[in-house]
């Protein structure tokens, strides 16, 4: 059985979709029952106090290249959250693992039910989590342009939740429905019902963290989605393929947001007679570096263990591929090994791991490469502004809470250090409460069109061809 999908989206339906929901009344009823719970969650946990303000949002009206970015002023609760899958391939196949090349599954194979459900629930859980983490940021936005970007990110995370909930409802029966309900019950940072993954329980209470989050943590999302886009479970592959188009904007927000802060910091450093950025109300490079160290490493954790039987099972079963699996020649990856340093008897030694067990590490490599590219761009900005600071990514072993390095201490260069050395160094390596206090003290809202906070440079151009002083969010009637 295949799912009917088309490029056109039924926007008149209560739940906009291109999956022929009206032909599946049972599923439609189930999702319509979930809808009010979702809205209740959005009202409780979504962006505070901006529900009645029109925001210049893009909404997907079709899933082809031109149709998904349709702009207009919308109040967030009226945003058309819907279910969009990339249209069917002619004959989709399993992309990786033992069954590579076989026809893809249109339904969940019983033997993979457990793994697939786990993959989907873990991915789904991150979507509402980030909305929760960012719910207060609207009050301190450095411009209407940034405020709008925040809300765009928020509503799309909400839509990604819909995408995953659709899969749970349609393909996983009663368990799936229960899991969909649980997604609305967990809360980021909650003591009793935390979100599943660590980075999604970290506070994100100022804009430096927001940009770092969208730069580093959402980028993990990109790679996870890209790996799932290679899934042999066809509905999952097509859902994530469409989500990736939206995710690109989130990464743009993060990368350019941090880039603009970095540019402004360089300008302020030159402006101040003593080169004291804080004296000018800006964010100094050391603090930016600590932010990078903090969020980059929490995001590395999201890829899972370096040596992982789950990663092996997921790849072997064709449930999760590599980034751009199509570019590899060998889709079975039965024979290769992956060399990585492990801690043995107090020192780092290279160890060869079967390639399949190292699939998390393979994905992490691609992610790090992508982050390095952004760092290069930021350093070029700093150079162009005439400063000599060089920002860098810490070692992948530094400040880890998951995986084989989590139980040891490393400095940012990746050298094994003692607990005392860690305690002595951590103040200068990762975000401290004092950093947060300072950042909160300078985060004052800048809510007039065309104005930008002093600690961030304006973007090089507006959005959707609009000017920088366009009223991206209408705060006044």
């Amino acid at each position, binding site marked *: 059985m295949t799912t009917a999908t088309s490029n056109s989206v039924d926007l008149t339906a209560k739940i906009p979709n291109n999956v022929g929901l009206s032909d599946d009344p049972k599923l439609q009823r189930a999702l319509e029952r979930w809808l009010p719970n979702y809205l209740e969650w959005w009202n409780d946990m979504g962006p505070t106090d901006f529900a009645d303000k029109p925001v210049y949002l893009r909404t997907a009206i079709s899933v082809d290249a031109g149709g998904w970015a349709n702009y207009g002023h919308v109040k967030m609760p009226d945003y058309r959250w819907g279910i969009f899958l990339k249209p069917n391939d002619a004959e989709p196949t399993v992309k990786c693992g033992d069954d590579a090349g076989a026809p893809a599954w249109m339904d969940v194979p019983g033997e993979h039910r*457990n793994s697939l*459900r786990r993959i989907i629930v873990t991915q789904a859980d991150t979507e509402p989590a980030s909305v929760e983490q960012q719910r207060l940021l609207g009050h301190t936005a450095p411009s209407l342009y940034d405020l709008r970007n925040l809300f765009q990110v928020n509503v799309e995370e909400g839509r990604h939740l819909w995408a995953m909930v659709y899969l749970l409802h349609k393909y996983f029966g009663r368990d799936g429905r229960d899991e969909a309900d649980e997604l609305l019950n967990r809360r980021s940072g909650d003591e*009793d*019902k935390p979100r599943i993954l660590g980075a999604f329980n970290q506070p994100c209470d100022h804009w430096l963290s927001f940009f770092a989050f969208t730069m580093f943590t959402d980028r993990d999302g990109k790679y996870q989605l890209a790996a799932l886009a290679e899934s042999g479970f066809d509905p999952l592959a097509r859902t994530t393929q469409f989500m990736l188009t939206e995710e690109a904007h989130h990464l743009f927000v993060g990368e350019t947001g941090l880039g603009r802060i970095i540019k402004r910091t360089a300008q302020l450093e030159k402006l101040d007679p003593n080169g004291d950025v804080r004296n000018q109300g800006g964010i100094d490079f050391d603090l930016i570096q600590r932010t990078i160290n903090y969020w980059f490493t929490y995001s590395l954790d999201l890829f899972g263990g370096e040596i992982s*039987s789950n990663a092996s099972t997921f790849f072997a079963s064709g449930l999760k591929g590599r980034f751009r699996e199509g570019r590899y020649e060998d889709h079975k990856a039965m024979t290769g090994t992956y060399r990585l340093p492990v801690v043995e008897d107090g020192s780092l030694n290279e160890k060869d791991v079967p390639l399949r*067990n190292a699939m998390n590490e393979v994905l992490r490599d691609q992610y790090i490469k992508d982050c390095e590219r952004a760092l290069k761009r930021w350093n070029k900005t700093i150079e162009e502004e005439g400063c000599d600071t060089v920002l860098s990514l810490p070692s992948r072993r530094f400040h880890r809470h998951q995986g084989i390095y989590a139980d040891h201490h490393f400095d940012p260069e990746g050298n094994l250090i003692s607990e005392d050395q860690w305690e002595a160094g951590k103040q200068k390596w990762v975000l401290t409460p004092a950093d947060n206090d300072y950042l909160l003290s300078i985060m004052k809202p800048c809510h007039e069109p065309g104005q930008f906070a002093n600690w961030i440079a304006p973007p090089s151009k507006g959005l959707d061809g609009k000017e920088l002083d366009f009223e991206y969010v209408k705060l006044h009637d």
Partner: protein
Amino acid sequence: MGSSSNTDVNVDFEVDPASYRHWKVSYDGAIARVAMDVDPNGGLRSDYELKLNSYDLGVDVELADIVRRMRFEHPEVRVVVMTSANEKVFCAGANIHMLGTSTHGWKVNFCKFTNETRCEIEEATEASAQVYIAACNGTTAGGGYELALACKEIYLQDDGNSAVSLPEVPLLGVLPGTGGLTRLVDKRRIRRDRADVFSTMAEGMRGKRAVQWNLVDDVFPRSKFDTQIAARCEAIISETTDLATGTREGVKLGKLGVEESDAGRKYSSVEVTWDDKARTATLTIEGPTADDVALAERGAEAMHAAGDQLWALRAYREFDDALLQLRCNHPNVGMIVVRAKGDAKRVIAHDAALVKTRDHWFVREVLLHMGRVLRRMDNTSRSFFALGDAGTAFAGNLLELALAADRFYLLDDPDNVVHVGMGDLNEGALPMNTGLTRIQAHLYGEPEKAEALTGRRDLLGPEDADEAGLSTMLLDDIDWDDDIRIAIEERVSLSPDALTGMEQNLRFVGPETPDSKIYARLSAWQNWIFIRPNATGPEGALTMYGRPERPAFDWRRV
């Protein structure tokens, strides 16, 4: 088979709190907290890491020590909270890589020992009014859930993530090996169709549904977990009445004095010698001395004051350690000759003194301990021949050793009259796990003979004993040496697997209890599955776990 050798590991079963690597035990009046905190690098072998509170035999040896000391050293404790010091995981069960790389015999020994510890936890709850409750503050998987099932009550943290599960069948192609299945349906009385669903569901169940299915007794949110557990502890303390008498002053279990040599181990009242080439061992226990009897007859407080030097406790602790040494460190020894030396009258007198004061908590614990050691013998997969020759005293509690053995040879020599006899401990104080006394099991087809022996406290000579149905064979002094030699040589020539199966079939006559099922049924199936290609063959699920390849099954049902 992917099995490395375990023979290079010599397991020491004697541990003490100062040496624990994997558990944190704390005491607060009537409440004890036992927190699992497994040291990943503290495994018995170095080729696996004990991640996520997973365990191997070494971890369980410490747990067994905790449970035993709780009863002797902390009689004031009424509630024991089993929990975890790990932030995310209560217990992930037996370490899979350890299982995957262990020999079959090692796996069996490991499962048997862990089962004995779980049964000991239940016995503490039922017989010693030390109630174990599981405070599952994280993922509770496989053997972790089986540990929880051994507790009287199970509480799970409701954090949207922590689940209880038995993933052995779907993930590993084996069974939950420590009584999990039996306890689901026999102890918690979970409907068998639901148990079927649960036991094939790798991710397990959490939250309210786990309560609805009676997999746990309740769930508490994380922020209220500790206070709810504390409240439950207080409630249990107020509900629990322990009628035992005596000052609740703990008795320290000191280190056993052992002289070790290549040929054996010599304790104060027990000696074991082995002949690895002949594949035999001799296990000798020396009955109480006149002083031992005199001390016991002075009453409970005197015995309490003697503590771990009381013969019944000291000798049985030694016997227990010897059994474990043979089981684990001498797999080739298939035949164990058992001798009980001493004076039959004294054993019976000693038993009488114990039974007379059994209301005292310490005496009760001594008796329960003796029972456990004897059941350990029942469950030991070696052939036991008890030899009642000159100087032996298979009477009272030591008669249990002869009845636990597969055969009891008795010497009929007018110049060296061997006496056997019933004592107060043969009539229910030291039950088998079937609930029968060993006399009842021994004379299962002749209950009138068992009846006739009840209440008899006189000593029986060889012919009377034989007549009463106690001995397997009566041999005169001329035949003794040759017949015994031949019987032993014949025994050690037979297939060890067939003998293990045969002995276990014959030893446990009569009814079944959950305990007897756990060993007889579940572990027999488990042991079969462990050697099947679908589990441990080159493409078996257990072999393949954590490897890049996926398992391949032989789909034919057997």
